[in-house]
């Protein structure tokens, strides 16, 4: 059983199937809008189709169980494949045959031989030097009176480029996993002069309470003469334990970072509501931007989302214990908050601008960057750096005559290797071939 699984997961064919399946299924999420409200889908597709889409996970493809399963299978495949092949490659790379017995040159991609007018020792030294000049690591693998064998190679590490790439992909996937588990993305709407510590999730009704407050001191928009917006700028302060600990102007592309949480300039809108909150201890009036929650009790929040000036009705969202209720209220009417001893009323409204901040915490990011660097480095090595090996055999053909057989292999770019070998031969020829050289090419 284990054996069968091991065989399946060590196959490159599985990798190809998984990669293509991921490619095809990813298309779905670009055709059907993802993570929208059920109402939107119902309107567009109708009830039956929506139910089918929902069942198949097509409304949130990239977080569906089968997409994650595909990614997990790919990761497993990657690991098992690498484990299976690494020893083989290690052997090829680190423990090659280092001699060139007669006849073996025929198995090499590039090879040639030449007879030179010089003693074997001299040719050996010259050849070693020529190879060293081309940055080869050289080794005399066998030497006796009549024969010398030389092995040389360079960029042996290039053989492992592929594994580095795979490692990079794995690290990126791990980073993605960390993001999915520990990260969140939400928003905060802040009218000028207001502050809050509540972040609403983009997906779902969840609300996070930050251990500090963010205050918007000022928000402005710069325009081009054509009327097109040039910059959105929010002047923000971080307030911790009642004290301002950081102040920064943020723009698109220039977020504020505090305690691993990023605040981005994302949008803006109009509308600040003033709520009177009455509790047995007394009452207070607070200003809050549309869409920004106000905490009324444990796990109990209220958002003002819209105002209809004609009918004087106010749209609200009431969020309690993770459940959202939408409704409308009338101004100045005091409403009791269920489950608490508080009541609230909307007492004023100002059509001022608020800044829309995107808030995100993502401890997976740096893991993804590390994986990316590994991935790029691996790709460059794997695709552009060739591992080249050269074997040579020198045969004594008399006191002053030596036959040289030289050949090589490259895991990529055989032509360039051939050019290098020609260069080496050129050096030897110019030194030891005053007469017309007798050259055999194969």
């Amino acid at each position: 059983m284990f054996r069968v699984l091991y065989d399946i997961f060590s196959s490159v064919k599985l990798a190809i199937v998984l990669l293509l399946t991921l490619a095809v299924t990813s298309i779905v999420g670009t055709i059907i809008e993802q993570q929208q409200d059920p109402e939107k889908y119902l309107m567009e597709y109708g009830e039956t189709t929506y139910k089918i889409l929902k069942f198949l996970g097509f409304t949130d493809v990239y977080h569906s169980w089968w997409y994650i399963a595909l990614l997990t299978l790919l990761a497993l495949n990657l690991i098992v494949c690498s484990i299976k092949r690494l020893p083989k490659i290690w052997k090829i790379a680190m423990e090659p045959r280092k001699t060139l017995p007669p006849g073996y040159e025929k198995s090499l991609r590039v090879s040639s031989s030449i007879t030179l007018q010089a003693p074997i020792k001299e040719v050996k030294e010259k050849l070693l030097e020529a190879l060293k000049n081309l940055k080869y690591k050289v080794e005399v693998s066998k030497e006796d009176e009549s024969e010398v064998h030389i092995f040389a190679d360079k960029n042996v590490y290039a053989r492992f480029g592929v594994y580095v790439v795979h490692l990079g992909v794995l690290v990126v996937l791990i980073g993605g996993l960390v993001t999915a588990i520990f990260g969140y993305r939400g928003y905060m709407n802040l009218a000028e002069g207001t502050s809050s510590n509540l972040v609403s999730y983009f997906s779902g009704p969840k609300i996070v309470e930050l251990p500090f407050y963010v205050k918007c001191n000022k928000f402005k928009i710069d325009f081009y003469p054509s009327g097109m917006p040039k910059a959105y700028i929010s002047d923000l302060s971080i307030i911790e334990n009642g004290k301002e600990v950081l102040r920064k102007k943020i723009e698109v592309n220039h977020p504020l970072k505090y305690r691993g949480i990023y605040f981005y300039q994302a949008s803006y809108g109009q509308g600040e509501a003033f709520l009177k909150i009455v509790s047995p201890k007394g009452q207070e009036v607070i200003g809050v931007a549309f869409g920004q929650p106000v905490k009324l009790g444990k796990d109990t929040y209220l958002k003002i989302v819209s105002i209809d000036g004609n009918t004087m009705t106010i749209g609200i969202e009431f969020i309690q214990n993770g459940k959202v209720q939408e409704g409308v209220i009338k101004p100045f009417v005091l409403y009791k908050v269920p489950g608490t001893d508080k009541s609230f009323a909307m007492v004023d409204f100002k059509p001022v601008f608020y800044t829309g901040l995107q808030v995100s915490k993502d401890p997976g990011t740096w893991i993804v960057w590390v994986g990316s660097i590994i991935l790029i480095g691996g790709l460059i090595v794997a695709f552009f750096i060739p591992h080249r090996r050269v074997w040579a055999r020198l045969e004594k053909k008399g006191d002053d005559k030596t036959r040289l057989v030289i050949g090589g292999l490259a895991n990529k770019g055989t032509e360039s290797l051939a050019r290098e070998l020609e260069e080496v031969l050129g050096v030897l020829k110019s030194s030891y071939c005053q007469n017309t050289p007798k050259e055999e090419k194969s």
Partner: protein
Amino acid sequence: MIHSVTLFNAGMVAYFLAFLFYTIYTFSKSSWSSRLATALAWLGVLLQGAGFVVRGIEKAKVNMVSDWTAFYKYAPFTNMYESLMLFGWMAVLIYLVFEWKYKNKAFGMFVIPLALIGELSTQILGFNEEAQPLVPALQSNWLLFHVVTTFIGYAAAAVSAGIAYAYFIKREDTTTRDWAVIFVTTWFIFFFIIYSAFRENFVIYLGVSAVVAAAFCGFLYLLKRIGVSKILPSIDAMEQMMYQSVAVGFVFLTIGIILGAVWAKYAWGGYWSWDPKETWSLITWLVYAAYLHARYIKGLKGKPLAYFTIVGFLSVIFTYYGVNLIIPGLHSYAQ
């Protein structure tokens, strides 16, 4: 100061002349026309290269930045006109590098017109050629690096597809079924390009692109009949070149996607948002990754390799055009 559009147009004229001389060289083998063709192609690259710098300065001006050294920050790759210029420029540049490396000029006749069609399509499809100011999300130091690396990837994919087409001309055993497949894939490519520009009259443009694709295939067939295959490199060499340009494309696409993720971290609040363009670049990446593995296990040789190359390019075209204009998302700056 000279206008950037003038420089781009002058570059196109140089490409066109280069194409003429590459064609003359192909049929006459005269060495002066081959040298002239290469010189003209380089001239075009230089002119358009200068065009990008001038364009950057112009854009800095529209963005009300007077410091000219800021031109790289206002890198001129932010609308369809500019990005198509960059695409054509990159394709010619990569071709010239290949020409220099392989000492073979047989592909000039295929790649230069592809680049030229890309650039000319800005006129036909009516993309605005004026330098426009940048919306806030695009004002970033990452813009230049993200766009340039991505486009090297795109252009390398285009070069590989060009070689794939030439490959079918070269092969003796190209059947009617092969031609049918070539026609259908080319049809898709032209359809994405043309439809994305108009976004209406689906059926009409489906027809128009079928005609264009048929004309393209007819042209390829004609080349085959008049014996162009003789001047093309060997089948093995072409497979090697196809693979190498895919490899270059894959590496740069990867770098482009990662730089995009870095930028997204600052602009959109996270390195990955499953925006349609991001997703399609991932799809393209997956297709090419599958290609590289298929080649590794040696199952992929000959015609399937060429098909795979064209499908990869089809995916690139969709990432580039289709997504930009058909599916709305965070990335749709280039409307």
